[in-house]
């Protein structure tokens, strides 16, 4: 990384870390929403951005994670943050089960099927499936998260919890990108036949992308349940999936910085334009159209270059 870029990243991170000092509770809460959507979008980015699989049902995995956490917490009194790995696992397994029969579908066909999955999950939740989801009212009374003996309840406390998770995710996903696994997802996106013909088990990597992306959505679901203390099916409707899809495409599919920037714009801007009331979505839609015309590959398009001349020297002959 060039020094100027490194400096900019450090400066931005420091500014963000200090944000609760000069922002009011409402503004910090908006940042918390941005962080949650950022986490969800980074997970979706693995599926949609890196592997090129059109998933417009990401909210389903988010919901599975949130409900797993809520049920474990309210019925079995498991501390909400402890449910984090389990809700990730549940959402990931759920994704594997639903993706297994449909993952061979291409492009728009997969898109339609995933929309269906999202709707089925939402309707199942409304219908109080297994008698555990509380129907349309959802689940309430989820306990506050506790970290190192401190109960997290105020916006700025959640801010550090959520953005800490975002930072960890960036760290892990950047490493993943620089690996055999990360490259395999890109080969899949670029040319499936050539990928299989180069010895890559394309069916396996498609499922792995779904599983990992969904696991991240599941863990974001836990954070959401902890933050709201009440969850209902309406939080996981089709529009959420659309927004996440939009964030990934708008930001630059396959680019972590781009996806986070888009999360700021898509979630943050409508809050800034609250005065315009109902017109804000109109303005927002217009901006999207203009964007897609002038920057079809996203705000920050993914660059192919994983390696610099310096890293090349590491290759031993």
């Amino acid at each position, binding site marked *: 990384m060039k020094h100027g870029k490194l400096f900019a990243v450090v400066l931005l991170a420091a500014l963000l870390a200090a944000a609760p000092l000069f922002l009011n509770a409402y503004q910090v809460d908006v940042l918390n929403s941005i962080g949650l959507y950022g986490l969800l979008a980074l997970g979706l980015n693995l599926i949609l951005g890196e592997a090129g699989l059109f998933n417009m049902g990401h909210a389903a995995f988010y919901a599975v994670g949130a409900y797993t956490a809520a049920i474990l917490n309210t019925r079995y009194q498991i501390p909400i943050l402890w449910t984090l790995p389990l809700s990730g696992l549940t959402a990931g397994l759920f994704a594997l089960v639903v993706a297994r029969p449909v993952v061979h579908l291409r492009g728009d066909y997969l898109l339609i099927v995933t929309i269906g999955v999202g709707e089925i999950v939402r309707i199942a939740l409304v219908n109080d499936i297994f008698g555990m989801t509380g129907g349309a009212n959802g689940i309430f009374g989820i306990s506050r998260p506790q970290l190192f003996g401190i109960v997290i309840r105020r916006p700025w406390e959640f801010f550090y919890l959520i953005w800490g998770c975002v930072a960890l995710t960036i760290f*892990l996903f950047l490493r993943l990108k620089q690996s*055999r696994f990360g490259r395999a997802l*890109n080969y899949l996106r*670029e040319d499936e036949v050539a990928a299989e*013909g*180069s010895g890559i088990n394309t069916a396996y990597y498609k499922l792995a992308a779904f599983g990992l992306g969904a696991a991240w959505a599941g863990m974001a679901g836990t954070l959401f349940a902890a933050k709201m203390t009440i969850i209902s099916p309406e939080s996981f409707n089709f529009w959420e999936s659309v927004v996440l899809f939009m964030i990934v495409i708008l930001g630059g599919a396959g680019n972590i910085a781009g996806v986070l920037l888009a999360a700021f714009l898509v979630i943050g801007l409508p809050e800034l334009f609250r005065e315009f009331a109902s017109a804000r979505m109109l303005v927002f839609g217009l901006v999207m159209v203009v964007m897609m015309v002038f920057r079809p590959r996203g705000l920050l398009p993914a660059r*192919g270059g*994983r390696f610099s*001349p310096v890293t090349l020297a590491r290759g031993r002959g």
Partner: protein
Amino acid sequence: MMEAPSAVSSRPAITATPLLTLQGLTKTFGGLTAVDAVSFVVEEGSVVGLIGPNGAGKTTVFNLITGNYRPDRGRIEFAGTSLAGLRTHRIIALGIARTFQNIRLFQRLTVLENVLAGCHYQMRGGILAAMLRLPSQRREENDAMGRALKELEFVGLRQQALILAKNLAYGDQRRLEIARALATRPRLLVLDEPAGGMNEQETEALIGLISRIRARGITILLIEHDMRLVMRACEKLVVLENGGKIAEGSPEQVRRDPKVIEAYLGTEDEA
């Protein structure tokens, strides 16, 4: 850019062991029989050319070998193993690598990343190893990068390692596909029209490259329309027409075969 073309004059003695055996291979699409009971053998260490007019079924034979299609009848055996029912990536792992007639590179990835695809199946590191950047994972990545760079050196693209594949010149894209295939450490390399769209100079360089690949002990099966290349590079030719095999033998034999002449030039009474 590449080494001077060396005519394939001093050929190593061919061992008679068959590496790839096709027997009674048949594939139909709807009512059309694309490949009709084709049998031939590719001996270990040889360069075999598969030729024939357009639509003769050559590429279909390739797609059957690499598992892109399933044969309706017949057997394919590679080094004593039946390839029946194996998915493509398993066949690649057994030691068959291929290139495509219409170049299929990972366009928006770098030249180096394209070649690393070939190293993929020989690596082990999973999601967790990558996220934790375990020492074993780093070692493996560095080794793979070294191997990929070596293959790029071999085909003469080392200097272009960090540019995007789509920005390569056409002939270089073909050579990159070969480098990617070589990175899978194949015993048999299957080339689908490697000289397609190449100019005379590039074709010359390709003939040199093929003989150097062969010198590494890799067996080659190729489809080609450029007869100069076929005559110089191959010691055995198999001729297909309308899905069936019409001739097999040395380039000299095949060139004189009346059936082959008819297939390529048509009979007099057709005119």
